[in-house]
């Protein structure tokens, strides 16, 4: 199923230049519609890599799995910050689980495992 865009949140990255989800999609699947909101051309082509999800500055993009794998209701959001990425997995009952993953750092790197 790939991703969906919450048009209330998408602000086209507040720029007239190329929005970041359009820039980063490895399949060139993201585009800007006439109403200036991001959209995906074809969710069947999506690799579920979450590049667009993480880079979205307003967290307008969320990922769902294809319906043949998991029914709708489980979603993933994320946000790439300078040194970490924060994640939120929403489960079927509405419970949200939060995770942080380290993303960049200078050696020696000390993780909090």
């Amino acid at each position, binding site marked *: *199923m790939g991703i969906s865009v919450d048009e209330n949140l998408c602000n086209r990255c507040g720029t007239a230049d190329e929005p970041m989800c359009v*820039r*980063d*999609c*490895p*399949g*060139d699947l993201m585009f800007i519609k006439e109403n200036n909101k991001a959209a995906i*051309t074809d*969710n*069947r*082509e*999506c*690799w*579920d*890599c*979450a*590049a667009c*999800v*993480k880079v979205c500055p307003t967290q307008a993009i969320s*990922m769902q*799995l*294809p*319906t*043949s*794998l*998991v029914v709708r209701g*489980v*979603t*993933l959001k*994320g946000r*790439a910050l300078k040194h970490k*990425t924060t*994640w939120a*997995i929403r*489960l*079927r*009952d509405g*419970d949200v*689980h939060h*995770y*942080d*993953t*380290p*993303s*960049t*750092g*200078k*050696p*020696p*790197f*000390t*993780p909090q*495992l």
Partner: protein
Amino acid sequence: MNQVELACDVLIIGGGAAGCVAAVEARERAPELSVVVMEKAHVYRSGCLAAGISALNAYLTTGETAESFLRYAIRETIGVVRDDLTLTMARELNAQVKRVEDWGLPIPRDEMGAPLKRGRASIKIFGERIKPILGKRAEASGATILNRVNATGLAVQDGRVVGAFGFGVRDGTFYIVRAKTVLVCTGGAAGLYRPSNPGGAAHRMWYSPFNTGAGLAMGIRAGAEMTSFEFRFIPLRIKDAMAPTGEIAQWLGAKQINARGEAYLEKYYEHLGGKRMLTQDRLYATLMEHRAGRGPCYLDLRGVNPRKLDGTIAAYLSMAPSTAMIMSDEAYYAGHGGEMAPVEITGGEPHVVGGHGLSGYWIDSARRATLPGLYAAGDVAGGTPKKYASGAWAEAVLAVRAMIDELRSQPAATALAPDVVEQERTRVFAPIAQPGPVPARDFEERLQKVMDEYAGGISVQYGYAEGTLRIARLHLERLEGELEALGAATPYELMHCHEVIDRVEVARTLLTHMSHRRETRWHCYQERLDYPERDDEHFMIFVNSVREADGSLRIIERPVERATIDVVLPPLSDGAVIRQPFGNGTLGDSSDPKD
């Protein structure tokens, strides 16, 4: 039609793991050189590393050497491996990992300063941002990056590669890049076979679905020698998510169990090495369990500390985020705080991918392909298995050093003959303005169906025989003849057309290689039902091929040369061990279930 012409010293085709490091190496080592990178997507999130990775599976951990890495590779490929390539790559691994760490890749280390080990050749990393880290370095190197330009073909003149062609996937601009040296590092080929997930989930696969074999196809068309396509890599994966199992198997130490809850590797397959068996046999044994009525098989997560499981979910978020979603959903069904259910495992569809297996360009130890001016590195280069991301960096660096050497003695770039340019332009844009066009997806599905059913896909449990290959070849020939009906209304659709054209080219070579190796050396990867035994007398060789000018493929058999370069290897029991099925433990070392 718009056209852009560029000239450079070094052209890098593909801005993935290998390509980004190659660009930096070229510019750092020889700042006077002009470097162009042609990238189909955007270097920030393109290729295999787009989602991130949670481990580097080619690294010499404490006590390991290039030679021990080679012994491991020899055992895994049952003797057919390029020792020179493997040794030169292995010697470069740790330096390149350190380099990317200095660029900002977080690598957790123990109190002694050594990276945290996941296996003998595998270390843990926090690699969610790995591709942007590489891409931004490539950008800052001063190389000219052509994002969203799909390479279509090599420019060959008087037998020498003198550049490449491509088109902009958004604007349809035709790119002509003249280059004194060319490095191809476009990755392997996904999408040759029907994928494990259906329809809307077809791209929920392990390998990048956007790696469509372009670099392989352009090499084949140009007449470069290719090796070992028949060594198809088939990953053992977490079912549905198709994510790597190493995070659970290695990091959590979860055992492979069958439906009866038995640790089947140890219980039924001691003759294959038990839990120290080869990567291919891990998959083979899993299939055998199914046939014996004891399937499906699982990785046993029962009893795993839930706190550690959180770390695993975080690791999957950094490489295969959908897996984290599926595991969380499973945990939800298992009940909050309840025991984690075992995770089902299965084989994926076969890929032609030289970073895991053996298939790709036939190169020398300087990473030169058989066409002058052309080099190859990473998943597109053959002969060295177990390269993965860090091995791709190592190969890229080795290639660039040789390119710089060649450039020092190389005369000025040659002009491109107009007919060479026109021929490619016509070929590239043929699908545009096609009356009554057939969409690329139709051909893609037909290719995948044929390959799946007749050339050892998932539906036939990877097995094939000469009879089935013959049918596959017939279907493929017909399909090739019909490719001229391919049509595209936009540059984006044109990209899909070329993806399927390239896949058909790769598949044709694959079938020829599969047909030539009349033995079964690599279970599942190369499973000949009509020749089920290994035949060292005739097939301890590389099966290579070259496409002739008339389009036919000529097979070339090349011998395995054991450690002929400047290195003294520990004795290999005079080769006798190699001839025994699966070795007896003295040849190499235990494999790690990381693939």
